[in-house]
């Protein structure tokens, strides 16, 4: 990937960098940042999130505020999902697309409690590209943009004990009343803290946004309370098991939301950039589709490995794959020709010199545990 092209000294550090180093984390470049991959082991951290609670430094993510009389109309113009009529305190997932339907990024839109105020949370690797895209398309709309990414830190606290931890360590009893994909505003050191019941692991959990200084303090409090620090290694194994896409692997300028099976986050009763191309794909022009594949072996299908029919015809490629920690199965996402995407279709993965038989399965490999 392009990570290796960025000179080490130009990599950014999050506000928690020193803490990661002090904890002895294995650090690696990711999305232009020097990030922790693991502290103990991917398996230990993965299981902590599934069984108890773990925390991730996700301060590298991008936060863009949009406000103004036409903020809603503007966001709906660039966003595949429909934010009309969704209430303050709610969070909506969706994509921004190019006119050809290719994906600019996937993101969260927060409707703030202040009228005409929104927060967009975007992928770290795409902050500059997204902000340029947003600026360009905001022309003609009465709204103001603020890329607050450098000023805002973020911790994702994830796992069945996340709510208890928030209440015990930070005292925010409000946490108990938040449903999944809603948020509330609280204060920490007299400054705003966004407590959002969202995440990227398939478990219940929270994402906390506040100033960098506050984030450093809160991280230390969680550490003292015994919360397992978790790196990007298990962030990927967790999101993968839960069937969640990663931009760059399952979404890209070449992979549209329809190809990725994310059509439920595209609303066609309104206009947005890329709508016609996505409608055409839905109507039949779609050539490839993202599927889940399970193979009958412990060998691991990795990104880039070919997908073949039992007769040996190459019909696709693996985008992400693991030997699933929670399920003890070798599974992957793969982009395959549409005619091979039906559930139970026999497909094989070529792993080095061997071919391993398998079949198409549901992409949500792991039963998620979200708070209703």
């Amino acid at each position, binding site marked *: 990937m392009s990570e290796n092209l960025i000179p080490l000294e130009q990599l950014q550090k999050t506000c928690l960098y020193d803490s990661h180093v002090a904890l002895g984390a294995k650090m690696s470049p990711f999305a232009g940042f020097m990030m922790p991959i693991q502290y103990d082991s991917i398996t230990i951290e993965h299981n902590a999130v599934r069984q108890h609670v773990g925390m991730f430094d996700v301060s590298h993510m991008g936060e863009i505020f949009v406000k103004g009389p036409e903020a809603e109309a503007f966001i709906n113009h660039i966003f595949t999902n429909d934010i009309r009529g969704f209430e303050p305190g709610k969070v909506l997932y969706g994509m921004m697309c190019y006119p050809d339907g290719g994906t600019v990024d996937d993101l969260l839109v927060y409707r703030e409690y202040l009228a005409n105020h929104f927060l967009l949370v975007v992928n770290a690797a795409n902050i500059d590209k997204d902000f340029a895209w947003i600026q360009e398309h905001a022309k003609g709309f009465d709204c103001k943009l603020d890329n607050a990414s450098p000023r805002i830190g973020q911790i994702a606290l994830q796992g069945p004990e996340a709510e208890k931890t928030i209440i015990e360590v930070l005292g925010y009893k409000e946490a108990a009343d938040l449903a999944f994909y809603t948020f509330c505003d609280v204060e920490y050191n007299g400054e705003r803290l966004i407590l959002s019941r969202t995440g990227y692991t398939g478990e219940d959990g929270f994402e906390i946004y506040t100033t960098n200084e506050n984030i450093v303090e809160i991280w230390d409090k969680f550490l003292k309370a015994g919360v397992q620090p978790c790196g990007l290694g298990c962030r990927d194994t967790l999101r993968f098991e839960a069937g969640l896409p990663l931009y760059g692997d399952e979404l890209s300028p070449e992979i549209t939301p329809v190809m990725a099976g994310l059509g439920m986050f595209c609303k066609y009763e309104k206009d947005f950039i890329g709508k016609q191309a996505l409608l055409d794909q839905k109507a039949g022009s779609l050539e490839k589709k993202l599927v889940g594949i399970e193979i009958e072996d412990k060998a691991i299908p990795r990104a880039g490995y070919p997908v073949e029919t039992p007769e040996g015809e190459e019909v696709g490629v693996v985008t992400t794959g693991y030997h699933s920690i929670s399920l003890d199965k070798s599974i992957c996402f793969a982009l395959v020709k549409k005619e091979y995407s039906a559930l139970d279709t026999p497909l094989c993965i070529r792993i*080095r010199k061997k071919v391993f038989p398998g079949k198409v399965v549901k992409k949500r490999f792991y039963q998620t545990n979200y708070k209703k």
Partner: protein
Amino acid sequence: MSKILDNLKYSESHEWVKVEDNIAFVGVTDFAQKEMGDITYVDMPEEGDDVLAGEEFGALESVKASSELISPVSGTVVLVNSELEDAPEKVNEDAYGAWIIKVEMSMPSELDKLMDAAAYKKMIGE
């Protein structure tokens, strides 16, 4: 610090070789298993397969990455360590006990190109 045994030969790609008569036991070093992290799968050749010095004969898989196994010697695989099929973690637990293949060497002189413990220790910088 990684464990290095004096009586073994080492390759640049972090395999070790233990020689008994014309048979070479091949595994990966303690340094290699630490770099890999938790090993979840060992991809091994079949008994009877020919291997060539410097060529891939299998792979180790951890959660995050796969790493090719490169044969330090040429010859025929006479035995694979089938214990690793169900217990790949043995490579983490005891890298020098968990041999992966036994090779009947066709060119034992290739052993001279491998490193001794001191040279390997120097190479990994420990």
